[in-house]
């Protein structure tokens, strides 16, 4: 039996019996991904595009209903751009820059994200999660047409697993009963309540916040501006301690009410009670339909490490944050970005298994940063003591009149990409090149004479040479390094971001578009050393 746990928004991969189910002995797969959410789908696509055979098992046959994640940040968009799925998202999504913060019934201030110019992708788009997933799935369909070895099996549920030294045996349930498969590598993308994690008895420690949030996604054609409105202690009746109004595509609006800890869930979820709150917020004259409602509590927690033998955790299964700051799905996509190339090198025998430890190392550090940011926002929005509430309200009062207090107002910080400072894959930096493009940082996009920098860095390792020369087609330890040569004269923004005051620079860039090392000039020995560090491969036989 494969239970149906939720309703499907888009049925994409109906159950069909496959040969593995009647095979004499379990079929061995290179990579099995558990879970068809945004992270599982992106993992399958990234690996498949790299030519790594991947089987995705999902216990449903399509994408779940409900908007869920709605804010996608620039770095996540750049990653799905590398996977060829971004245009549809940006076309469909709502781009926003303006926000207003209210305290009780008066405006504290308004802000403009004022995203830095000269980037191809916007700072943020709002897009309901089912669309995000659907566009990645469509990317998978295109990839399969072009020969990518990706297979998705709907209504296939993992029920137990056994880890061996170099593979995992999986028991899978289907409408036709149980069967077994084996996987060299298992990637668990099965969400915050990860059944895989539970089957393995692994911990998920952190902080639980004693608060309930009611989400109401309402459909209306009312003429509210495309802005993020956030209320602390709103004056409209029944709205709780804070409220949020934010636009999504299809005339859908996300409304959030903070209800407190001791509530009667069933009562609060009754449509008439939700409508009473929404009416008070929007005014009686506004016509709307309730599209999706939910009550959630939240936690900020993570696994101690994301790699356990042959099982790798990515996305919410590995770490969970509060929704303030859009760091859930966005950080999960960065997990995928970080993991896929490393697993490819390991599977192709070009790097030792120990390279995967750096996935855990780098993404645990990123999770800590996300948890810290999300905890800080939560502590501001839901003060835990009298004195923290006093400080919070003083900040809001001062912010109304004085600009200085506005940076202290925290209704969720922008989700910024992780910088892997101190990563074991970084080489020592002896340059004075700009800080923002140091080793560990993701590449900052820049306009080129005929396109964009990030679009040039989509296929493996790169040596980016600005006003410097390096040989083409370098190959070190079996790993190809592409050379991208650019001039500062033709590219002033690139020069500003990557040269600063220097006359020339060479950057070694990882397949996930993070800087591994940089120099002023070409030096074959230094580059060989840096590539070995970045791939955790000292050149000895693996």
């Amino acid at each position: 039996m494969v239970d149906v746990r939720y309703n499907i928004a888009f049925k994409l991969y109906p159950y069909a019996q496959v040969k593995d189910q009647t095979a004499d002995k379990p079929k061995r797969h290179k990579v099995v991904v558990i879970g068809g959410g945004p992270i599982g789908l992106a993992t399958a696509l990234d690996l498949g595009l790299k030519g790594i055979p991947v089987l995705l098992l999902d216990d449903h046959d399509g994408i779940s209903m409900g908007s869920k994640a709605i804010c996608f940040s620039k770095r996540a968009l750049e990653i799905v751009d590398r996977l060829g799925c971004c245009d549809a998202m940006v076309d469909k999504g709502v781009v926003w820059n303006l926000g207003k913060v209210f305290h009780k019934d008066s405006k504290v201030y308004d802000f403009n994200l004022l995203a830095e110019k000269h980037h191809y992708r916007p700072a943020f788009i709002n897009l309901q999660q089912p669309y995000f997933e659907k566009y990645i799935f469509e990317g998978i369909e295109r990839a399969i047409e072009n020969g990518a070895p990706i297979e998705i099996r709907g209504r296939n549920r993992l029920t137990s697993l056994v880890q061996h030294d170099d593979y995992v045996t999986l028991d899978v349930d289907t409408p036709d009963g149980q069967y077994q498969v084996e996987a060299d590598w298992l990637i668990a993308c099965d969400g915050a309540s990860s059944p895989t994690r539970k089957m393995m008895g692994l911990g998920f420690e952190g902080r639980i916040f004693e608060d309930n949030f009611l989400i109401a996604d309402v459909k209306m054609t009312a003429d509210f501006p495309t802005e993020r409105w956030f209320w602390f202690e709103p004056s409209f009746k029944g709205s709780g301690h804070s409220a949020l109004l934010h636009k999504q595509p299809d005339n859908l609006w996300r409304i959030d009410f903070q209800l407190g800890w001791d509530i009667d869930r069933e009562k609060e979820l009754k449509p008439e009670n939700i409508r009473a709150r929404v009416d008070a917020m929007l005014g009686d004259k506004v016509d709307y339909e309730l599209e999706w409602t939910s009550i959630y509590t939240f936690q900020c927690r993570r696994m101690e490490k994301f790699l356990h033998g042959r099982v790798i955790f990515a996305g919410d299964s590995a770490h969970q944050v509060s929704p303030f700051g859009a760091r859930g799905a966005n950080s999960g996509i960065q997990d995928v970005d970080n993991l896929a190339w490393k697993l490819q090198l390991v599977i192709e025998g070009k790097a030792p298994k120990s390279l995967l430890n750096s996935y855990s190392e780098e993404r645990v550090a990123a999770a800590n940063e996300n948890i810290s940011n999300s905890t800080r926002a939560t502590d501001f929005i839901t003060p835990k003591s009298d004195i923290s509430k006093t400080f919070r309200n003083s900040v809001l009062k001062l912010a109304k009149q004085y600009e200085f207090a506005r940076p202290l107002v925290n209704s969720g910080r922008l989700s910024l990409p992780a910088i892997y400072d101190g990563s074991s894959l970084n080489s020592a930096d002896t340059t004075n090149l700009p800080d923002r493009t140091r080793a560990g940082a993701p590449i900052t996009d820049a306009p080129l004479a005929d396109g964009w920098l990030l679009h040039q860095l989509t296929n493996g390792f790169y040596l980016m040479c600005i006003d410097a020369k390096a040989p083409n087609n370098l190959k070190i330890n079996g790993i190809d390094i592409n050379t991208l040569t650019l001039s500062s004269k033709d590219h002033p923004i690139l020069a500003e971001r990557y040269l600063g005051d220097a006359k020339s620079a060479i950057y070694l860039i990882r397949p996930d578009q993070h800087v591994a090392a940089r120099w002023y000039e070409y030096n074959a020995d230094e580059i060989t050393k840096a590539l070995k560090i970045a791939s955790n491969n000292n050149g000895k036989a693996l």
Partner: protein
Amino acid sequence: MTQIITTPNIDKPDDFYEQLLAIHEGLTKQQSDNVNASLILILANHIGDQKILSEALEMAKTTK
């Protein structure tokens, strides 16, 4: 390296102290707490330097 000043630095200590008490006159406990919180935030912004702020917080903590 700047360090927090722990020697007398207020021009007219008695005047300052008198004014500090005066702004709290007639206030409820909550109103006084609000005023104190705002005062801390205003002064912290004026100082700005995270290292000095951190030292000030640690100093204050010892008087609990």
